């Protein structure tokens, strides 16, 4: 039990230190020219209302540009609900 604790702390601290070392390469907070905000996102902001007649860009991207993704997501929660039912629900008359 004691060794497991020490191994756990070692793994957590090593991973945390490596991740914090990695943040030096991450974009600065609130940088408008950071990689996440420069490639495809300006296209969505400038064209979403014109092309889909939907002022809320999040809805437009969610259901139209990335509709296939959202369909997969709906299937995932459907599968989760069905697997909960199959795991827990008892058969009739048992």
């Amino acid at each position, binding site marked *: 039990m004691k060794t497991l604790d020490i191994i756990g702390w070692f793994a957590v601290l090593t991973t945390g230190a490596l991740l914090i070392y990695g943040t030096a390469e991450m974009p600065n907070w609130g940088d408008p020219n950071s990689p996440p905000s420069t490639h495809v996102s300006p296209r969505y902001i400038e064209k979403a209302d*014109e*092309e*889909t*007649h*939907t*002022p*809320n860009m*999040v*809805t*437009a991207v*969610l*259901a*139209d540009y990335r*509709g*296939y993704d*959202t*369909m997969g997501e*709906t*299937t995932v*929660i*459907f599968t*989760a*609900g*069905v697997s*909960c*039912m199959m*795991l*827990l*629900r*008892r058969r009739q008359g048992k």
Partner: protein
Amino acid sequence: MIRRHEDIIIESLARFLTPFIQAFALYVLFLGHYSPGGGFQGGVLMGASFILLVIAYDIIEGKRRITEKFNIVLNATGVMVFSGTGLLCLILGGEFLDYSQLAAILPVGPEEARGLGILAVEIGVEITVAAIMVSIFLDLASAGEHEEALK
């Protein structure tokens, strides 16, 4: 295993609040084009209104309002509305989930048709999320035994 406590304040307050929560869920769904909101958020609200009834009363009262079979049908209906919209676009000659093809059967232009396609898809998401929330809650709260847990 939620037992009924017969507390008149809690029960009448839950019954009073439920239609307002459901109306707000529909508001969040249909205003998703113009304000923060959409199918996922509205669906969780719609499911929460039913979960409130189950908590305030008990599982028997909750299953009297939505039976288990009807709930399972609702689960599948949402996914079918979503993929059916995509299939309709495919039949009308476009690609899967390309809503601008819906302009052929709706009296609007291709841009408005894309907006209406988004609305149809969000309704499907709302139905599925609401039904799944209720189904997961009922299964987990009674460890899968539903009303038999009360006996």
